[in-house]
Structure formats: structure tokens, C-alpha cells
């Protein structure tokens, strides 16, 4: 978690050091780790109140998430979209924007990937897969850029626009799939698109003979690449430096000759691209078509993932894995230890609460501590 933020103190790294107020420990992994531990402890209280043994509960949770090769592969399948959508939220955070729209951008990416993958189903994989990938990423990027553009030109709060955009895409999707141009007969019992061509499918990376019905697909490799791209973009390119500078203080950045408005549009496009990739991977890797109710909620969990991961690439990946383990493990905990899977939602909520509390404390400390903060 710290690796990325604490590399060389010179060059582009000078920016964070301008903002010195917070104690060193709060910059590292200590806060997320402690907040997760506090949450698990508080969650244990709830388990006790409900008349179960917390140790049994957490043992079942852990085994459910990592207890067998199948469980591990399922946890990773969930971690992929969570991490990518988490990167989407994190990159916007780094530029001082709050992207609530990862869910909408994910769905737009999924719709575009599903449409292209089905429309050109006969193309060979070497053409179709990149085409589907590009469709998903670009559609997500375009959708994200709208919110960035409105913020930059009209000053419309991106929180509002991205929330609205989430609703718009859900209803457009409903229309497209139910009686619009993308609807197709299917066995899902719910409106869905036609399946994508074989060439657009991301292969399963674990053979069926070893883990039957494993769904772990090559999208996990794309997610790893995305984590590296995120790091490289923000800490190894001048654009990344500018984005972070805008995030630390838009007016100061403008003084330094960086136009914050253009960066806002750009970063929302990048954020949308990450989320769009998540949607594309869910289509190409997991379901091979789009349907109503597709991948509900990943984009919202992603906000928690980004916060817990402190918007750092490794942090987001680890937080994505943790939330995936919660999701998968919680399901199994319910079947094996008869404890409601909603417990994990309680724990997740407490994690968020503790992190938010930490942010509040730090904000107060910052305000007292440094006049430099006034720049932001």
C-alpha cells in the first residue's frame, strides 16, 4: 500500500510533501488495517447479540472465501470488477473529484462490449476481443467525461451528475434489453442481450478438470495490468503529476500553469475507462451477454474500496480483494454457519464509518496544523 506513495522524495514526489500536516503513520497502511480490525471486532459483537459464536462466524467467512480452490477462484472473480471500479473512483479522488458514477460507467461499458461482441460475433478473436475491449473502455470513458465536462464548463457538481447518470443508464439499459434493439431470446428469465461471439470471450484460466465450473477468467490479468497502469499514470507521467496537483489544490495548480478544467474532463474520462473495463470484463469473462440487473452494486462498493485502499494502486487491489472475500465468504458463512450474510454488510459499513471518522479527525487536525492547506 505504501510502496507507491512513498517512493523517491524528489521530482514528482515533491507534491505530497507540500502537504505535511498528517502524522506519518496515517499515510501508511496502519489506518485501513486498524479500521478493518475495529470493524471485525464490532461485527463480532453483532454476531454475539444474534446468539452465535463470532469465532465460528469468522472461520466460516474465511473458509468461504479461501477454503477451497473453487472458493478462491470465486473470490478472485468478484475482486476483478471491484478493483477496477475502485481504481475508477480512486483516480478521480486523486484529482479532487468524487466519482459516484462508477456503477453507471461500468454498465455503459458492459452494454457497449455486449453490443459489439454480439454484432460482430463472427470475427476472429484476435480482432473481436480488442474491439470489444476498446468499446467497453471508450464507452465508459465517454460517459465519465460528460460529468467532467459539465463540472469544468458549468461548475455542475460531479457528485450530482454522476448519480443522475447512474439512473439514466439503468433505465436506458432496461429499454435496450426489454424491447429495444438489444433484446434477444434467452434462458435467464429476465431481459437480456444476444450472447457475444466466441472470439470476444475471455478464456477461463483454470481448467475444468482441476476446478470444475471455475469462472476465473483472463480478466484478472487485465485487472493486474490496470493496477500497474494506474500507478504508472499517476506517478510516472507528467499528466499524472498534473492530475495529482489539481487534486491537492486546483487554484495552486492553475497558478503553476496547469489548467484544472481540462484535467477534470480528462480524469473523469480515465475514471470512466477503468469502470468501463470492469463492465467489459464482466461481459467477456463472466456472463457473455448483458442482462437487466447486471453486476448490480459493484460501482458503489468501489467507493468503499477506493477509500479503504487510500486511493493507492496496491491499496485498492487489496481492498478489492478484501471486499470480494467478504462477499464470497459471507454467502458461504450463511450456508455453513447459519449466520445471515448481511453480517458482512454490517462489517463493511463499519469499515466505511471508521475510515470516514479518520478522515474527519485528519481534516480537523489539518485545519489547525497548517496554513498551507488554505491553498487547496
Amino acid at each position, binding site marked *: 500500500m505504501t510502496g507507491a506513495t512513498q517512493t523517491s522524495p524528489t521530482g514528482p514526489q515533491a507534491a505530497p510533501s507540500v502537504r505535511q500536516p498528517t502524522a506519518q503513520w496515517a499515510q501508511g497502511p496502519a489506518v485501513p488495517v486498524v479500521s478493518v480490525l475495529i470493524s471485525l471486532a464490532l461485527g463480532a459483537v453483532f454476531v454475539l447479540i444474534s446468539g452465535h459464536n463470532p469465532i465460528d462466524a469468522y472461520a466460516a467467512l474465511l*473458509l468461504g472465501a479461501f477454503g477451497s480452490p473453487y472458493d478462491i477462484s470465486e473470490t478472485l472473480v468478484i475482486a476483478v470488477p471491484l478493483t477496477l471500479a475502485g481504481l475508477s473512483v480512486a483516480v478521480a479522488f486523486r484529482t479532487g473529484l468524487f466519482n459516484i458514477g462508477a456503477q453507471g460507467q461500468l454498465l455503459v461499458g458492459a452494454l457497449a462490449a455486449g453490443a459489439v461482441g454480439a454484432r460482430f460475433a463472427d470475427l476472429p478473436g484476435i480482432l473481436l476481443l480488442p474491439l470489444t475491449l476498446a468499446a467497453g473502455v471508450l464507452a465508459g470513458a465517454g460517459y465519465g467525461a460528460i460529468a467532467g465536462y459539465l463540472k469544468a464548463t458549468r461548475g455542475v457538481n460531479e457528485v450530482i451528475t454522476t448519480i443522475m447518470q447512474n439512473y439514466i443508464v439503468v433505465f436506458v439499459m432496461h429499454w435496450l434489453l426489454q424491447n429495444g434493439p438489444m433484446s434477444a431470446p434467452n*434462458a435467464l*428469465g429476465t431481459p437480456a442481450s444476444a450472447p457475444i461471439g466466441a472470439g470476444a470471450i475471455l478464456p477461463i484460466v483454470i481448467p475444468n478438470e482441476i476446478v470444475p*465450473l471455475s469462472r476465473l477468467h483472463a480478466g484478472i490479468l487485465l485487472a493486474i495490468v490496470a493496477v500497474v497502469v494506474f500507478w504508472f499514470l499517476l506517478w510516472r507521467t507528467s499528466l499524472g503529476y498534473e492530475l495529482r496537483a489539481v487534486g491537492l489544490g486546483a487554484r495552486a495548480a492553475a497558478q503553476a500553469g496547469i489548467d484544472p478544467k481540462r484535467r477534470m474532463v480528462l480524469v473523469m474520462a480515465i475514471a470512466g475507462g477503468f469502470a468501463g473495463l470492469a463492465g467489459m470484463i464482466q461481459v467477456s469473462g463472466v456472463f457473455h451477454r448483458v*442482462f437487466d440487473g447486471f453486476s448490480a452494486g459493484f460501482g458503489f462498493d468501489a467507493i468503499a474500496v477506493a477509500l479503504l485502499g487510500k486511493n493507492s494502486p496496491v491499496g485498492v487491489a487489496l481492498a478489492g480483494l478484501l471486499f470480494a472475500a467478504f462477499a464470497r465468504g459471507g*454467502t*458461504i458463512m450463511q450456508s455453513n454457519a447459519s449466520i445471515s*450474510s448481511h453480517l458482512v454488510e454490517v462489517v463493511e459499513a463499519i469499515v466505511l464509518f471508521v475510515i470516514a471518522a479518520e478522515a474527519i479527525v485528519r481534516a480537523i487536525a489539518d485545519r489547525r496544523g497548517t496554513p498551507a492547506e488554505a491553498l487547496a
Partner: protein
Amino acid sequence: MKRVLAFALISTFVVAACGGGGTGGGGGATIKVGLVTDVGGLNDKSFNSLANTGRLDAEKDLKVQTSVIESKKQEDYVPNLTTFAQQKYDLVIAVGFLMTNATWKVAKQFPDVKFAIIDGAPANDKGDSENLPNVANLFFKEQEAGYLVGVIAATMAKDKVGKATHNTVCSMGGIPIPPVDRYIAGYQDAVKTVSPSTTILNGYSNDFVDQAKGKEVGLNHISKNCDILFQVAGGSGLGYIAAAKEKGVYAIGVDADQADVAPGTVITSALKRVNKAVYDTIKAVTDKTYKSGDNFFSASNDGVGYGKLDAVVPASAKSAADQALADIKSGKIKPKDTVQVK
């Protein structure tokens, strides 16, 4: 390949580590039953909660070991079914037609595990039904339940009981899928038989969740003189009932007994005893009478029926419904299963 090797290593480690723990996998005679809900979850007061009731009853009476998994997303159906199958459960029950494709996928992969799916048959990736030797398809004769409540509605409309003064009855489906339309078909058949002069209207909310859409259809129906409204639309149908309540007319619930939703408005409910289907299927496994392929639950095996009657329902309507129930059981009445008034 490294990845595969790592998984193999981890798996041996975990298996070894858990060997001593013993979380009940004794491998004795107890039969293990797993239930997977659809995205409606356990507290939907309908389909999933009824199925869970059947599971809990069976656990109590039949000394079987049971578990439930709530599906949070559509994507979860395959992994949730797989989880039970992998743990070598004897019977895995999928609740609802949303899981036809997932059941097909998983059941094919685990031929030694028995499956049951409520309201559907396994369907392959193309969407075609395909019976499997290890899947029991649990169907209901919804038209019989629809017929019974139709008799009650028609009797009240004909005799202008209470607020039912316009001799017009209505129904609303969610999406026109077969189980929904069978309810409506039976309802219309009963009204046409019992009271040919009664006007029948039907509509769809095109949704199973959105109450606002159901209410809109309900208000429209009431403006066209409907005073008995039969909902066949799950959550969306609650909006249909809400419209009846708001305008002071009558409604009929569906699947579960919905008398509590709006007392005084809901005069009865068309019951589909999913709990009975689940219980009987579990019992069939313990008795070794489990049968794959189509299994029907109807009036004759108490799989369908009508629910609690409100005080406004006259004795004449009750006796007419009971007579119809007896006639359906004896085969004298065969309710239609295709919708006549669209």
C-alpha cells in the same frame, strides 16, 4: 501453469487443515439439502420465503440437514448452486425460473447430485428447455388457483357485494410469462363460467419489482370501473393492491397469503404452496421416490389453493369456491391455461 500448481497446493493444504475440524460433513446417513434463493432474498414475503418455510419444516420433521444461500446478484446463481453441489449435498433446490439456465449448467457438471427447480425446467444456453436425469422440475397448476379466486370475484361481482358494484373485474400480470398467464387464464375462465355478463380487463406492469408501475395500471383499471383487482406481479403487484386500497375497492393477492398487506382490501389470495413443493421434494429424496423431469403441484395434492377470506366475502362465494375446488380435484372442471382477454 504456476497458478494451477499454486491452487493445487493451497487446496491440499486447506483440505489437510480442515480434516480435523469436521464441520458436520460426517458422511453418515443424514441427507443434506441446500436451497438457493433468487435475488428476491429470504424476506420477499412470497416465493423465496415460502420455499424457505418448506426447507425449515422438512428439517424439523424429516431429520435432514439443510442450508440456504441468498443470491445477491444474478451472477451469483451459478456459483451458489455450485457451492452446494461441490460440498456433495444430496439435493440442491433452485428457487425460481430465473435460475433455469444456471441449473442446467451446474446440474450437467454434477450428475451425481440431485437438483430441483421451482417454476421451470433446465434451459441450455440457447434458451431451450432440456430435461436432465438429475433435475426435478417443480411446476404448479396456477390456473387452478386463479380459477378459485376467479369464482370468488365473479360471485361478488354478479351479486354486487359491498363495494363491488360495477360488475367489472380486472387482473394485472408482471411480465407475460407462462406461470403469470396461467393464473390470469384460470381467473378469466372462472369469471366467464360463473358470471358471463361480468366485464373482464387485463393488463401488465412489465415489471416484477416497481410498485409505481403496478399502481399506475391499478388506477387506470379502477377508472374503467374495476372493483376487484387480481395481482400477479410480485412486488409490482403490491402497487396494484395499493391502488385498490387508495380508491376503496377490493384486491386479490398472489402466491403467498397477502391478507396482511392491506386488511379489508385484500379479500383473498391465490395460493401457490411453494413450501409444500419444497417439502415434498425433500421427502421424496428421503423416501427414495425422487422423480426427475416434470412434477406438478395442483389442487389435487394441495399444491395450490385460495387464501384467508376477508369478512366481506359472502358465504355464497365461499361455498362456490369450495365446490369449484372439489370439481377441480375430481377432474370435472379443467381450468383453461391460456389467457382469453389480453
